[in-house]
């Protein structure tokens, strides 16, 4: 039901707040009104009872028992027809609202006197029996035409002996009129108050949302190209300040992401342009100077090498772009990290030998992890090729795989040129080169190798770190979660273990 209303009426926050305020206020108003009405009704009835008591006392003052006969003197002078004989038929009943209501009964309960207005009343029996037993009686009776009358019964005694019962009544019509008027006035005033409350809360809500409106207007002015500007932060520590701070934090991270992206695109286009420029210059020169087939062959080989570089770069870019989009699927199959390290080393041995570098793999026990074998081969390849690339002839590159508690640890240590401390934090950034001048153009390095290493290792729930000293060499360490015993046991028969 609630949701239905919500769907039918898409109320704004301001209107909702206003409705809530008004509803709560109306409920409070109703509650206090009802309480005061009840209280007033009670106190009015109580004061009426007092009045009736007083009157009964006054009338009783005029009633005496003289020689067994009840004689009545009109003390108050407002009891016309009271002293008439009750059997006098000429006295017709008068409306209870007009004239006093007094009735006098003798000790046996026989009617002695009554005012004409009393004749229209039917009075319950306990109004006589109860006073005769000594307790006073007061109550409300309803006439045949629906009017309510308040009655008080009181006994008259002479020397401690009951000789008469006196009843005095008063119509409640006046009291009711008063109360009805009060209700009508309360309703009118209440409605006016509610209206004022609605208007006031609407205005208050508008005032409360004004800072947010201003914030939104500022935020709207900030366009995608203008991520430097920030929304103003209000001094008061409240929700609006929190909102402004959150917006600014969001703008900060957007700004950072945008500038990273801009730098990445700039770097990528630079890296892509270089091999293309090399190819163009080679072919341009060949068209002008090349004479013999040998000349052309040299140019073709150069072009081929550059094309290969370009191909690698494009593949790496594609891999990272897909990774950024989260579109990459990683296998989770049991695999032996130690065998991967050995296979990669065997594969890179030729390159290392050409560079005069010793490449060795420390013997280790089987280390099984769950992962995407092809991508982890690439991780190890990138690390080992990197180490070989940045190590001078005569140096040494060693690969170690071991299990430490629940982690598989792979480290690639070289005796290379090392990395200056200020470059270490940026080493895994895309296209970051610690020292562009010392780059060997012969390799197929794309500048993305370490970025890919970090991406793949993180995707496997692992970490990669680097320690380095200039001139001493570097050590890259990859930590990956070990496969649990049960997972390792599910190693399929056709895996690489059966070498």
């Amino acid at each position: 039901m609630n949701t239905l209303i919500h769907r039918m009426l898409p109320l704004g926050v301001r209107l909702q707040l206003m409705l809530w305020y008004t509803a709560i206020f109306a409920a409070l108003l109703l509650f206090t009104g009802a309480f005061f009405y009840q209280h007033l009704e009670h106190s009015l009835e109580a004061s009426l009872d007092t009045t009736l008591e007083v009157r009964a006392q006054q009338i009783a003052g005029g009633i005496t028992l003289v020689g067994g006969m009840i004689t009545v003197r009109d003390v108050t002078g407002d009891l016309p027809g009271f002293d008439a004989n009750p059997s006098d038929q000429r006295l017709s009943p008068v409306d209870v609202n007009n004239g006093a209501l007094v009735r006098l009964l003798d000790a046996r309960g026989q009617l002695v006197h009554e005012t004409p207005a009393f004749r229209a009343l039917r009075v319950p029996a306990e109004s006589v029996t109860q006073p005769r037993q000594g307790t006073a009686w007061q109550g409300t009776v309803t006439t045949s035409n629906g009017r309510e009358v308040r009655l008080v019964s009181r006994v008259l005694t002479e020397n401690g002996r009951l000789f008469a019962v006196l009843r005095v009544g008063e119509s409640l019509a006046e009291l009711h009129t008063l109360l009805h008027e009060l209700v009508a006035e309360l309703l009118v005033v209440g409605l006016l108050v509610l209206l004022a409350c609605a208007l006031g809360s609407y205005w208050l809500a508008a005032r409360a949302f004004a800072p947010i409106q201003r914030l939104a207007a500022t935020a709207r002015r900030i366009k995608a190209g203008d991520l430097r500007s920030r929304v103003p932060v209000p001094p008061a520590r409240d929700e609006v300040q929190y909102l402004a701070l959150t917006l600014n934090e969001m703008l900060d991270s957007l700004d950072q992401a945008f500038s990273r992206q801009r730098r990445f695109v700039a770097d990528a286009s630079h890296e892509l342009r270089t091999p293309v420029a090399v190819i163009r210059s080679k072919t341009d020169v060949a068209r002008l100077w090349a004479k013999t087939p040998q000349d052309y062959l040299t140019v073709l080989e150069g072009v081929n090498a550059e094309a290969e570089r370009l191909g690698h770069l494009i593949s790496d870019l594609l891999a990272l772009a897909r990774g950024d989009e989260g579109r990459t699927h990683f296998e989770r199959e049991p695999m032996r990290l130690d065998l991967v390290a050995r296979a990669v080393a065997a594969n890179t041995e030729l390159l290392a030998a050409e560079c005069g570098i010793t490449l060795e793999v420390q013997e280790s026990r089987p280390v099984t992890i769950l992962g995407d074998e092809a991508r982890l081969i690439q991780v190890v390849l990138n690390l080992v090729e990197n180490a070989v690339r940045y190590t001078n002839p005569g140096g040494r590159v060693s690969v170690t795989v071991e299990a430490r508690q629940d982690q598989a640890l792979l480290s690639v240590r070289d005796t290379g040129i090392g990395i200056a401390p200020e470059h270490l934090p940026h080493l895994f950034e895309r296209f970051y080169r610690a020292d562009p001048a010392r780059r060997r153009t012969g390799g197929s390095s794309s500048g993305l190798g370490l970025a890919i290493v970090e991406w793949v290792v993180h995707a496997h729930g692992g970490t990669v770190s680097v320690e380095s000293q200039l001139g001493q060499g570097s050590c890259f360490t990859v930590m990956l979660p070990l496969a649990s015993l049960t997972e390792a046991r599910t190693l399929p028969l056709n895996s690489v273990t059966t070498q």
Partner: protein
Amino acid sequence: MRLLVVEDHPELGPDLKKGLEHCHYAVDLVTDGEEALALGETIPYDLIILDILLPGLDGREICRQLREQQQEVPILFLSALAEVEDRVQGLDLGADDYLAKPFAFRELEARVRALLRREGPTRSPVLRFLDLSLDTRTHEASRGERVITLSSKEYALLEFLLRHPRQVLSRSMIADHVWDDDAEHLSNVIDVYIGYLRTKLCAAGEPDVIHTIRHSGYQLKEPAP
């Protein structure tokens, strides 16, 4: 062997991909006709499995356009349209086979094997080179009497080599036929997998039949004397 599966059914498509990958094929799955045509034009697939009713572009239209561009890739229609008229029309558009839905996966598997055989040097389901043999039905490899257990990628690599004996295969050719779209860029990893395969094939001291051709790629060839 690399397959393109064009199937827009949200469950059948992934099931087909999974099933065929289990048979050691590299499988790209697309659900949209336009994308299927674009991929079919640019990637040298070994086989295309094509649904007919597709969003974007009709399967028949894809087949017609590929054949118009002289693309010789085998095409297998996999469709719920099972009338004789539909099958005739599909085959006459240049498709190589037509399988009506519902179908048994084993039959699809066998038809895929049959279509792949047509392209290769032998019509036998068992690929052989010297003492090396690979049964494409049971996925068993052996050298002489020795049975060799292979991982999925090693199997795919060996199958591709055996289907192109004595040809020099570049890394990018191997990557195109052995890796699916997801892992396409991993061509530098091929060297490591060739290393794995070589180790397994020569584990009992047999001569090496996978030759590295420097700067070009690999070649399945009789061992050097």
